């Protein structure tokens, strides 16, 4: 029997003929006709006109015919909702059929008919099927609940199907359990706060048991669901890990990756000194390597995930460099990913091997791959200092090949090497200059111009070289124009006598003949600088440049953390949070890795999220101050880490031309972090983000550039975290903790100011010796003392002390006088100023009295503002 003939008919009047055949008395003919209809449907012809005739064929005891009709119904019911109702009776009848296969078929198909009217007829049969004696029917019904929820969520809740579904998690059949888990997980995604899955140690135990028994797909559903659970303590986390690790030997790569996800996430909760932690790390490497022997498409998924894993935990694969070597016949997408991982794993120990490989790759055929290989050599030079020399000579060899794109790529990376190791490899400049003419890509031209300008004093004919670019100034891209402008100004400052004419020429080209505002502005600035104060110009233009970082294109930490929670999924393949490519409510919740909290059993889930503010737990005298440290009430007495105030709106979209910034400050591992959520509420894409601070009281300055990983598309939101240091210029601000910020993007520059909690500035080594404390307290003059009260704080003194310790406020001594607890505390600011406080806590009274003294009269205002 060949069915391919059904694909060939394309006569006119076909629909008419089919109609006749469908209404034929002969069963065989009917079936043939339905097949033809399905074939037409497949190739995209509209056969919806046959709806009533096809539905008429539904009442049959021939299962094959029935399935075909159902297939048709699923496709066309929505365009003919009224007609679809005609089918309901048959469905309901089939749900009572003695044959479990037919019962399941009916309930499965009914769920696929997305017509509102049908849903109410579906409820009764579905309820029965969920309790069917046959597991095959139950597992089908479980998925049907998810289908119904997709059409009419309210109905599912009203009818109590969610509870029935929850009961199925305890079903005796593992496949029913797996499907129920899948359905519940999906439903839970659209109700972020519903706690639908209600994961607790008992239900987790059930899932782990089912894990051993169900199909490979079921194992994936269960593992993906487990990954959303937050264990209560490290012991529970270890026991789950122990029961998940056997899955690493499964033949199905998806099972392996989902198991890796669970382990990567739960590992975070284990103490690093635990033996098991080390064992687990070792167990993760072999299965990840094995994934590379899968089919290429899966290799690609695996490599994208490994890229995340090596960023999060480089130790896992650090000895496995060789498996990422590119094979001659790997598909290009696998090659490019392997190359990325090779660079991430490159270290002093393996650099020789890596370089030898990269050199091989640079002679391959695929242009993208070769470019990336050349760039990789440069990245190795920057990453592993010992190899820099070898990398440079390899790059020079490659330049000698004269292959155009290789040369250009090499010059771009050599520029970065110059930046990283100034005054070391300039001897190669001559070779670079030989290739000036062959550069036709803007990036390479700009890089070369930068080199010429930067080292103008060592290049005899620098003026000639730059002049040659000037001829076609207006045809160059902006990047090159800007670079050329700067380079000539540099040249002028270095060799003023011979180049006056040249600089005049470029300045007038930039300011008078250009439409580009950036170029014009830069031109004017240079012009004015040069004409008013050449010395200042020198300081500005020839200023020492900050070092460039070793690792480039690292994924921003919070995003990385989120992506780790999405191992195996599309998000991990795209390296984007689900919210960036999923529409609607699904997947928009951000997932976080739980943190190790030292085995305290009392803390439930919800860790890792910023601490929530308990309203009215305390009346802080001044907002944004130390007083906030007391909240997160409830009297849990344990070190919590630095208090992080919730994000507040810093830049409303109205003022930011569509850019909205919410932000807060945190002190993490001794580093002050400015954490911001950027939302693009404009219609166009935003790129080229940068940030600057005005001078401020404590000299806060960004420790690196603002890393906004992707161009920010409309409606996209990203979280960025900017480490700060205290190296910036100081100027007293009013209020003291005020910070004026400028954020730039491709649209404009925006200014806003925000206030950081003073507690961010408390350093970790602020604990004073007892004796020193006493002496200092006496030494500080009384006028440096301030006193005030904090009301409505219900913590006892120990809890308060613990909580403050998390924010680097250290309790030196405590004594109890007349029912009052007196806490003596010290803290040290980043600029070395110490603050000493006496905290009086009246037991049973919600009022605290604080007196404090500080070492520096100028700063008398701080503690008052800090609000202790």
């Amino acid at each position, binding site marked *: 029997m060949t069915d391919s003939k059904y694909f060939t008919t394309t006569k006119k009047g076909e629909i008419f003929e089919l109609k006749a055949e469908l209404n034929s008395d002969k069963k065989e003919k009917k079936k043939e006709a339905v097949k033809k209809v399905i074939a037409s449907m497949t190739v995209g012809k509209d056969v919806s006109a046959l709806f009533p005739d096809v539905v008429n064929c539904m009442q049959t005891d021939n299962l094959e015919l029935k399935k075909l009709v159902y297939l048709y119904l699923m496709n066309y019911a929505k365009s003919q909702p009224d007609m679809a109702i005609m089918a309901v009776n048959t469905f309901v009848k089939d749900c009572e059929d003695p044959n479990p296969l037919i019962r399941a078929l009916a309930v499965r198909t009914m769920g696929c008919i997305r017509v509102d009217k049908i849903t109410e007829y579906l409820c009764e049969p579905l309820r029965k099927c969920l309790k069917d004696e046959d597991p095959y029917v139950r597992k089908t019904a479980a998925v049907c609940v998810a289908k119904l929820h997709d059409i009419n969520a309210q109905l599912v809740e009203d009818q109590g199907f969610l509870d029935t579904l929850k009961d199925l998690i305890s079903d005796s059949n593992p496949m029913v359990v797996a499907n129920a888990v899948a359905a519940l997980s999906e439903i839970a995604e659209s109700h972020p706060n519903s706690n639908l899955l209600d994961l607790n140690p008992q239900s987790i135990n059930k899932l782990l048991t089912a894990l051993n028994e169900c199909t490979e797909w079921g194992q994936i559903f269960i593992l993906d669901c487990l990954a959303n659970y937050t264990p209560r303590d490290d012991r529970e986390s270890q026991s789950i890990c122990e029961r998940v690790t056997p899955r690493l030997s*499964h033949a199905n790569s998806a099972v392996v990756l989902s198991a890796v996800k669970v382990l990567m996430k739960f590992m975070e909760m284990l103490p690093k000194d635990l033996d098991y932690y080390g064992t687990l790390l070792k167990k993760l490497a072999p299965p990840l*390597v094995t994934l590379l022997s899968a089919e290429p498409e899966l290799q690609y998924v695996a490599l994208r995930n490994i890229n995340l894993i090596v960023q999060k935990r480089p130790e896992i694969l650090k000895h496995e460099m060789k498996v990422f070597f590119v094979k001659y016949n790997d598909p290009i997408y696998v090659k490019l990913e392997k190359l990325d991982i090779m660079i991430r794993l490159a270290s002093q120990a393996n650099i020789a091997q890596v370089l030898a490989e990269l050199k091989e790759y640079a002679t391959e055929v695929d242009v993208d791959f070769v470019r990336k290989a050349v760039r990789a050599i440069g990245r190795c030079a920057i990453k592993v200092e010992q190899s820099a020399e070898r990398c440079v000579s390899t790059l020079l060899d490659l330049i000698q090949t004269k292959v155009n794109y290789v040369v250009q790529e090499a010059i771009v990376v050599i520029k970065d090497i110059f930046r990283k190791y100034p005054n070391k490899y300039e001897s190669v400049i001559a070779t670079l200059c030989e290739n000036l003419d062959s550069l036709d890509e803007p990036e390479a031209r700009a890089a070369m111009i930068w080199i010429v300008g930067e080292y103008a004093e060592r290049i005899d004919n620098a003026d000639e070289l730059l002049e040659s670019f000037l001829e076609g100034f207006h045809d160059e891209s902006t990047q090159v124009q800007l670079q050329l402008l700067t380079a000539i100004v540099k040249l002028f400052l270095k060799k003023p006598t011979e180049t006056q004419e040249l600089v005049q020429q470029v300045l007038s080209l930039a300011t008078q003949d250009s439409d580009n505002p950036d170029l014009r502005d830069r031109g004017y600035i240079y012009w004015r600088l040069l004409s008013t104060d050449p010395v200042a110009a020198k300081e500005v233009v020839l200023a020492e440049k900050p070092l460039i970082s070793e690792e480039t294109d690292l994924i921003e930490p919070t995003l990385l953390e989120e992506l780790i929670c999405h191992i195996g999924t599309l998000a991990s393949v795209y390296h984007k949070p689900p919210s960036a490519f999923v529409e609607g409510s699904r997947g928009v919740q951000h997932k976080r890795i739980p943190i190790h909290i030292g085995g305290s059993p009392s803390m439930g889930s919800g860790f890792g999220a910023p601490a929530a503010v308990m309203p009215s737990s305390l009346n802080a005298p001044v907002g944004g101050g130390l007083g906030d440290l007391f909240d997160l009430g409830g009297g849990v007495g344990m070190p919590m880490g630095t208090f992080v105030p919730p994000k507040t709106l810093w830049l409303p979209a109205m003022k930011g031309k569509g850019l909205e910034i919410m932000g807060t400050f945190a002190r993490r591992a001794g580093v002050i972090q400015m954490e911001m959520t950027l939302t693009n509420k404009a219609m166009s894409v935003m790129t080229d983000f940068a940030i600057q601070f005005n001078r401020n009281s404590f000299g806060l300055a960004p420790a690196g550039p603002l890393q906004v990983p992707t161009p920010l598309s409309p409606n996209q939101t990203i979280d960025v975290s900017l480490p700060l240091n205290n190296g910036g210029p100081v100027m007293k601000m009013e209020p003291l903790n005020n910070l004026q910020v400028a954020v730039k993007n491709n649209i404009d520059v925006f200014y806003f100011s925000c206030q950081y909690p003073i507690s961010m500035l408390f350093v970790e080594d602020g604990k004073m010796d007892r004796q020193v404390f006493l002496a200092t307290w006496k030494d500080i003059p009384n006028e440096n003392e301030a006193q005030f009260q904090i009301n409505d704080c219900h913590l006892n003194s120990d809890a308060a002390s613990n909580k403050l310790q998390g924010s680097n406020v250290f309790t030196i001594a405590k004594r109890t006088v007349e029912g009052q607890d007196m806490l003596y505390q010290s803290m040290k600011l980043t600029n070395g100023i110490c603050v000493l406080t006496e905290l009086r806590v009246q037991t049973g009274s919600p009022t605290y009295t604080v007196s404090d003294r500080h070492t520096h009269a100028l700063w008398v205002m701080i503690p008052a503002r800090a609000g202790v």
Partner: protein
Amino acid sequence: MIGGLFIYNHKGEVLISRVYRDDIGCLSTPYPSWERNAVDAFRVNVIHARQQVRSPVTNIARTSFFHVKRSNIWLAAVTKQNVNAAMVFEFLYKMCDVMTAYFSKISEENIKNNFVLIYELLDEILDFGYPQNSESGALKTFITQQGIKSQVRDKDEQSQITSQVTGQIGWRREGIKYRRNELFLDVLESVNLLMSPQGQVLSAHVSGRVVMKSYLSGMPECKFGMNDKIVIDKQQGKGATSDDSAKSGKQSIAIDDCTFHQCVRLSKFDSERSISFIPPDGDYELMRYRTTKDIILPFRVIPLVREVGRTKLEVKVVIKSNFKASLLAQKIEVRIPTPLNTSGVQVICMKGKAKYKASDNAIVWKIKRMAGMKESQISAEIELLPTNEKKKWTRPPISMNFEVPFAPSGLKVRYLKVFESKLNYSDHDVIKWVRYIGRSGIYETRC
């Protein structure tokens, strides 16, 4: 989850389309619009794309397409959600396996001929985009090419089907009977090598598979043992004599990693490192493994390339066989790449036949058989057309193909025990066949 599944021919025409979800905001538009949009988007952006495929996952207008290709047939899964990407690909491969099990080759003709069957399968193995039991053994009990014989079934048979499809042992049905209980076990290894021109091993690994054919009655419990170093060391720890340990210690191999068919009890392997399972009936792959230590490299290739002027290359390649002299390697083939501007080649080889294949840009040297501990040589003179192209010839590596009757990893099967308590046959009654085949994977020497 998976929103839809499409099968295309090489021209981009749709052969099969099954939509599981219309999760996009198309509720107001009549049905076919989205599907057709997705179908067309994939055709335009992937199948008809001018460039080589840059990624097996493509995102077009917020819709993600996963595709695999089998000969000239494209299978594409489509979704709008953050699905488990590894699972989608595993499913697509599984789908190919299932189709192969039903109608052998995946071709346009076979797909058209079986489209009703494929729709039926798609309805069964994917529900609302969630993969369900997709073991072809189980599926074949109730979905057949001849349509369904449902009417003749009695109730017992029906519930037997459903309990098997959903059961713990979804890969095997009850009540299988054979007159002769037989087991075939093949250890198939592919040995991979990348060697520098100087003879330094850059990377070498063996990826092996244990493939079984079992024809056993009832629900037998099997236990498989091999010379796994961890197991052997553990047994020695239990107090074997030192003499014993020295002997067996040499023979054990270190397995880097292994994965198992879903019938193997993984938790048991994790705790005791024993491999026990109830096998599927017929063909299946029991395990895959990988080793990197102490690999026996069956052949060594020693290349010598000399450029004589700009229009001539001299190539000399020696191959040495490196295994027991009593064993015979077969199907030996050495591929020596030649530059694109080759105009003529003269070859002299000691053994076998060698030919220049202009279409492959390579000299192909074939030897039918070669015993261990031997060596052979080929020399060639390659004439080149003068070109003005600046780009240097990239010198692809010399690759080799061969087949040897041993396992290059050193893996040995120690035992394969069968227990079936309910039926009256014992381990001794089962006829077992074991075979070792080592093949070249990517076996390359740079020159």
